[in-house]
């Protein structure tokens, strides 16, 4: 009896599918996709992205949009998971027919996405995924307007460790493309600088770090380079205080945003004091007029000053994309790549210029300047680089 209807059912399914096909609307806007984690453990970054997207589209459309049309951003949640990232990216390209994709903050996701970008030949500007191979693979359609691991380590973290005269360091890294990659780079940089160190890996989702922290404490480091993203970092910092690893040792949050998330202080309590983190944004260190405009626009739109610098990073990338589309005069992928390669645009973090020499991380890479900031009595004090410093390291 059941199988008698099966033909009918399947026919209905097939029919409904065929009907669903004819859904190509006339384009009145130019669509650009943004990928980022809006759910999962890195979801806070997606929220920052959404804020940046709102400000970015308003900014671009207020200045006349792109190619005479309005710029429309389609956001796709990648949930911090590479598989969702790849399928989400593909969906943007095949379903939403976006001309370009921006975003991503999770390296492993970005590494999956660049394969799709390459397969479908869609320009992709990575914003906040730091793993070196993203650009080092040398894909024609892949750009990065944001930090890369090697840049952050060699320009900022290693130099800061040397400048502060730390003698012993401990590297804790989550097992992700970002964490493992930046840990390796840190090891070789510290070796070169003659700083003694030990290293271990941890899980991003891990909540109980007591055992690990006591192992670290036994090494008696001056500084702990913590490459843990998400709330895992909060547990790490709070428990480091409980086992009295800090304040003798200084913790550096090697990613940044988790130390700026709204609940940081609630989760870490007083143990958050003196913690250091990497960031590209500080109120008193605004390199361009646009950066100040951005802060004011953000304050106006959301009622608070911006905290997570990743909202500004995506804002910048929207400006870069709009600029490239306008200069290319078309949405053709190859023309867009040409235009992107010739980019010279002032954004909030400085002037964007992509490297064009193949064969390394520098290819299609623009590295914004990064800061090391310390929480001193809940005030952000810039420690590094020296020309931007607003104070000294407190211990």
């Amino acid at each position: 009896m059941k199988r008698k209807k099966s033909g009918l059912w399947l026919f209905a399914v097939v029919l409904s599918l065929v009907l669903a096909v004819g859904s190509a609307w006339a384009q009145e806007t130019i669509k650009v996709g943004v990928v980022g984690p809006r759910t999962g453990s890195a979801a806070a970054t997606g929220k920052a992205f959404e804020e940046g997207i709102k400000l970015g589209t308003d900014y671009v459309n207020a200045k006349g949009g792109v190619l005479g049309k309005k710029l429309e951003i389609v956001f796709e949640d990648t949930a911090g998971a590479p598989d969702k990232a790849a399928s989400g990216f593909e969906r943007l390209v095949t379903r939403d027919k976006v001309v370009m994709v921006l975003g991503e903050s999770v390296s492993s996701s970005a590494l999956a996405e660049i394969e799709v970008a390459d397969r479908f030949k869609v320009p992709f500007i990575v914003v906040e995924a730091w793993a070196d191979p993203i650009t080092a693979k040398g894909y024609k359609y892949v750009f990065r307007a944001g930090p890369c691991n090697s840049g952050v380590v060699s320009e900022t973290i290693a130099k800061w460790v040397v400048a502060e005269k730390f003698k012993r360091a401990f590297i804790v890294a989550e097992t992700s493309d970002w964490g493992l990659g930046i840990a390796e780079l840190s090891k070789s940089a510290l070796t070169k600088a003659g700083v003694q160190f030990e290293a271990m890996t941890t899980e991003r989702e891990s909540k109980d770090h007591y055992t690990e922290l006591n192992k670290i404490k036994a090494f008696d480091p001056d500084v702990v380079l913590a490459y843990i993203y998400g709330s895992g970092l909060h547990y790490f910092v709070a428990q480091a205080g409980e086992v009295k690893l800090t304040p003798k040792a200084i913790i550096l949050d090697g990613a940044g945003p988790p130390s700026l998330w709204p609940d940081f202080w609630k989760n870490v309590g007083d143990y958050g004091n003196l913690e250091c983190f990497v960031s590209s944004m500080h109120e008193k260190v605004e390199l361009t007029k646009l950066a100040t405009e951005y802060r004011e626009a953000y304050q106006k739109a959301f009622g608070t000053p911006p905290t997570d610098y990743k909202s500004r990073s995506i804002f910048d990338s929207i400006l870069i994309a709009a600029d490239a589309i306008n200069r290319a005069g078309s949405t053709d992928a190859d023309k867009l790549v040409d235009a992107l390669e010739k980019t010279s645009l002032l954004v909030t973090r400085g002037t964007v210029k992509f490297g064009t020499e193949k064969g390394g991380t520098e290819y299609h890479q623009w590295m914004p300047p990064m800061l090391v900031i310390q929480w001193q009595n809940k005030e952000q004090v810039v420690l590094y680089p020296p020309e931007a410093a607003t104070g000294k390291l407190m211990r």
Partner: protein
Amino acid sequence: MTDRRFFVILFVAVGLLSLLPLGLGVYHLHVMIVSLFYVMMASSWNLLAGYTGQVSFAHAAFAGIGAYTSGILAAKFGLNPWIGVFIGTILAALIGLGMGILCLRMGGIYLSLTTLGFSEILRIVITNEYEITRGTMGLQVPGLVADYSKPAYFYIMLGGAMLTLIVLYKLIYSDIGLNFRAVQNDERAAASLGVDVVRMRVLAFTVSSALAGMAGGLYGHYLLLITPEIPSLDQQFLVLSMTVIGGMGSFLGPIIGAISLEIFSEYIRAYGEYHVLVFGLVALVVARFAPNGLMGLAEHRLRGRRKASRTVSAAAG
């Protein structure tokens, strides 16, 4: 009820479906390919839950075993992915057999909890052995066809789904299938009639694990990226919901459930972060108020009148 009718319907359906690549764009073809993966997963899970009354939470884990076995062999040792999928299927079957023997003696809830534990162990191992599996970073694997093509993958998945359904049909509509259903209805009564309950369960568990392994292997080589998402509890949730909403214990239910829910979830994705919530709520309502799923509802409507007359004659007899 006859074999012939099943095969006629199957081949007509497959024939119709194989025309899809002519009319569908890349995106919709992708949705169909994923649907076919879920058809395989939900149908083979249904063999367990619907036909022998065992709720396994490791079905996605077995898909993961298939995917990772084949993926690692292909990515690290350069083995032909087709052979990899085959080995993955066999390995899933063997692990299923071992686990079945280990815990099926203890019955219902133990199986559920052991499978839950197993999938958690698998997740931890995959995440931690990132030097081999690349953990949450995802393992990039070669494809089943040299030049990436959606229609080619569509036909491969269609073939996989067809194979799965034939195996399931042959099993369910045989003496063994009769025993499965007896076990699901009432273990003790089944045992009293000579049914070896443990053996039936182990058999169902092994076959269903093998089919999940195959589905996972094929799917991994379609995605070209294998992540712990394939063997995750979230994936398990999708498979379970599709089966429950489609209709547990009916042959067609999981097929309808898988295809319609995959399409549905693609549409509600527009609501962004709410889509899992919506999906879950629908599943909850259906599971609570229509325990036989869509198929149960459809059957109820279609059969209502006929059944009424029969029940009367039954009472008279």
